[in-house]
């Protein structure tokens, strides 16, 4: 219902105990450590710079992550889709200590995996290079000598390519002047021909010139033996490389059992990095160090006595000074705590501000339920979240709260679905008429928003008025708590009176009651009182809204402008019409899906099959779209219409020195 009161903690201890003390604090995770900035000229106390060590930890963490990725590639870890909900694995201190001793070996294995992977990649590159060579030899395959052969003592041999496709006749024609010539075609492709030409030494030069003039080029491949032989040789090389890759792969796969220790290594280094970051924040003399931080009041005594029993240490717990802004830890009951993240993503309560989570929770589930407003979907959501909560016991706290929030929202949706008579749209009616020829239907508990949207609109806005008034009351309470009763009256109570009396005045007019279909306008003494209250409170707003200004003229002008703020109340209240619109959207689209399902087929069995298929796909889609809408717009109503009235935020979340590990959670005892 609030935030936990914080204490300032100061620890002074010997440097020899530094590691143990910090590890103790890290495991407990209840102390936030402030940076103590020291004067550079301070002789006794110094800050140490550990950037280099931290960079080293980061390197190890990255390498371990890399090794895990490599391992995952070669030996896939069996994981269910929802396993990530399980959170970090718990582990005892003893297990952790045992690991710490052998962490060097684990790191060696990490390096080994990375080296193996590097060799595999190198081999792969070599293979593709070799394959390119084989490919290049392909046109020369029919040649039974080396493609680089230049001739004998009495002959010149020209092996190479000519552009375009040519025949043997073309060649002889080309070289007719240089007889005797032996020419043959090795291979022909569309854009080039591989040729073999032999002439006598004497004719060689001339023949070469002619060939050159026709675009002759020596082969780009080089081989000592015939191309076919060369290819076989290269293929054996590839096989050898592949065999090597296989050995490397097997070797990597053998490390699959070490996966857990790699994860632990990554966590271990993350914790060390965190610890070193904290050491930088301490102020240290030659033999002692001083730590300054915040701790929640409820944990303060425990941490003090634990530390004092274990170490030679001085722990000082004191109240934070009034100028300080200690960090925020939420403390709410089971009903409101799931919504802490909603408040948090708006802002943490600022100095002297109340935590608005509980007051918000009174409306959050209700608004969500009205917008989602389908008993079927509510039931689905409730059942799904309940199963998840029951199945994944070790879920992280934040995730658990998120799921619990949807569980409560689901229950609320179920309730409002029954109230407004919506079950997967109008499933009962459609099934009854299509398959059983009856006019059975489940009647809404109150009324159906489909049949009477105007009534629903009025209900939505009425709820909106209550919500906004609750916000204004919160403003009043907040002001009172900080000793500004007068401000609370001017900015909270006056507006409640003004808006409330304006609504009463509207309700006394026939015009308004006609629109909303609310029956006879109220009459008698009430409207007269309302007019009086409205005038008085409007006057009050004009006189007080500009109270910061000293100049009376300016004050009045500001006051008048403040009264103009009544228009924002109008738009705020109208904004709650989204309750109707989104509620209708869920129900009507659900009905569309049902009637589409009922349209297909002639006989009952075909109809039933198609109905079930369309029902499943359609409602899953509708569920997904509308749960998103309900979530977004519930947040909007809370943030804009509700928080806008009283909540500024601006606080800072408590960020304790703790083990921010990824895979394992170390249990205390």
């Amino acid at each position, binding site marked *: 219902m609030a935030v936990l009161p914080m204490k300032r903690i100061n620890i002074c201890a010997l440097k020899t105990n530094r590691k143990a003390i910090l590890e103790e604090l890290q495991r407990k995770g209840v102390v936030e450590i402030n940076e103590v900035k020291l004067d550079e000229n301070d002789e006794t106390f110094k800050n140490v710079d550990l950037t280099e060590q931290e960079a080293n930890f980061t390197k190890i963490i990255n390498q371990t992550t890399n090794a895990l990725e490599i391992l995952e590639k070669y030996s896939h870890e069996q994981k269910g889709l929802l396993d990530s909900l399980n959170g970090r694995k718990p582990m005892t201190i003893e297990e952790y200590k045992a690991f710490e001793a052998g962490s060097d070996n684990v790191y060696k294995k990490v390096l080994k995996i990375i080296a193996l992977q590097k060799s595999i990649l190198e081999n792969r590159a070599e293979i593709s290079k070799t394959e390119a060579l084989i490919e290049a030899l392909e046109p020369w395959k029919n040649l039974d000598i080396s493609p680089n052969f230049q001739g004998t003592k009495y002959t010149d041999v020209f092996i190479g390519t000519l552009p375009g496709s040519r025949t043997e006749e073309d060649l002889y024609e080309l070289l007719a002047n240089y007889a005797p010539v032996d020419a043959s075609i090795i291979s022909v492709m569309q854009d080039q021909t591989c040729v073999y030409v032999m002439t006598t030494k004497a004719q060689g030069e001339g023949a070469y010139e002619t060939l050159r003039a026709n675009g002759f080029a020596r082969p780009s491949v080089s081989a000592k033996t015939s191309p076919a032989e060369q290819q076989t040789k290269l293929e054996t090389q590839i096989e050898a490389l592949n065999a090597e890759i296989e050995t490397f792969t097997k070797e990597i796969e053998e490390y699959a059992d070490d996966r857990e220790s790699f994860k632990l290594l990554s966590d271990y280094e993350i914790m060390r990095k965190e610890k070193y970051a904290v050491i930088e924040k301490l102020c240290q003399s030659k033999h002692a160090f001083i730590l300054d931080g915040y701790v929640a009041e409820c944990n303060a005594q425990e941490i003090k006595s634990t530390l004092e029993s274990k170490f030679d240490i001085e722990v000082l717990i004191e109240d934070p000074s009034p100028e300080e802004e200690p960090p925020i830890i939420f403390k709410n009951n089971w009903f409101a705590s799931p919504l802490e993240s909603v408040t948090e993503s708006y802002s943490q309560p600022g100095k002297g501000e109340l935590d608005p989570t509980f007051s918000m929770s009174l409306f959050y589930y209700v608004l969500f339920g009205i917008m989602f407003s389908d008993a079927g979907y509510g039931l689905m959501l409730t059942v799904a979240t309940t199963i998840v909560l029951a199945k994944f016991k070790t879920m992280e706290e934040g995730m658990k709260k998120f799921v619990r929030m949807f569980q409560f929202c689901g229950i609320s949706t179920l309730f409002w679905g029954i109230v407004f008579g919506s079950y997967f749209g109008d499933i009962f009616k459609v099934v009854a008429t299509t398959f059983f020829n009856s006019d059975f239907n489940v009647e809404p508990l109150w009324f159906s928003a489909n049949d009477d949207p105007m009534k629903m609109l009025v209900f939505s806005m009425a709820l909106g008025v209550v919500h906004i008034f609750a916000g204004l009351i919160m403003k009043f309470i907040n002001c009172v708590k900080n000793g500004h009763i007068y401000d609370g009256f001017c900015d909270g109570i006056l507006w409640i009176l003004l808006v409330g009396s304006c609504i009463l005045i509207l309700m006394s007019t026939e015009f308004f009651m006609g629109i909303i279909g609310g029956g006879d306008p109220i009459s008698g003494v009430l409207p007269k009182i309302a007019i009086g209250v409205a005038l008085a409170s409007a006057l009050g707003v004009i006189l007080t809204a500009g109270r910061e200004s000293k100049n009376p003229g300016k004050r009045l002008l500001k006051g008048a402008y403040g009264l103009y703020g009544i228009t924002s109340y109008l738009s705020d209240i109208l904004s709650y019409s989204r309750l109707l619109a989104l509620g209708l959207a869920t129900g009507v689209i659900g009905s569309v899906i049902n009637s589409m399902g009922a349209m297909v087929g002639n006989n009952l069995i075909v109809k039933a099959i198609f109905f079930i298929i369309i029902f499943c796909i359609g409602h899953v889609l509708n569920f997904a779209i509308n749960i998103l809408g309900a979530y977004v717009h519930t947040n*909007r109503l809370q943030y804009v219409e509700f928080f806008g009235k009283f909540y500024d935020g601006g606080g800072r979340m408590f960020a304790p020195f703790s083990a921010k590990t990824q895979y394992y959670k170390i249990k205390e005892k």
Partner: protein
Amino acid sequence: MSELGLFFAVLGAVGAALVAGIGSAKGVGMGGQAAAGALTENPSLFAKVLILQLLPGTQGIYGLLIAFIALSKIGIIGNGAVSLTLNQGLSFLAACLPMAIVGYISALHQAKTSVASIALVLKKPEQFGKSMLFPAMVETYAILALLISILAINGIL
């Protein structure tokens, strides 16, 4: 002339789904492009940017909603078409206009806001809660248009 009544009513109903649908299709498309771009930088943001992409999609659904309410009101869906006077038909057309026009324009603007929010989430993933709010602000006007269309259609017959 009077047989044209039904035609105009259908025109209105279909128009709401059509125009608002086009707006949402464009909007979700814009969001999708930005989301895909964001994923190239940080794939772990998938769920968040997907939600932001989907936000301009609701106008199309509201259009569908209006179309369905109108079509079932005039019996095109269900028990067979009722006969409408020209005046009633045109009234249906008019009643569908807010959803069609506001739906179209707000979807486009919501999409632009969504794209900006995706950029925000990419830089500051922890600001997701707030980033969701900006597009939702634009949607308010689509909801108001939806409301007026629903109320108007309900009042005609």
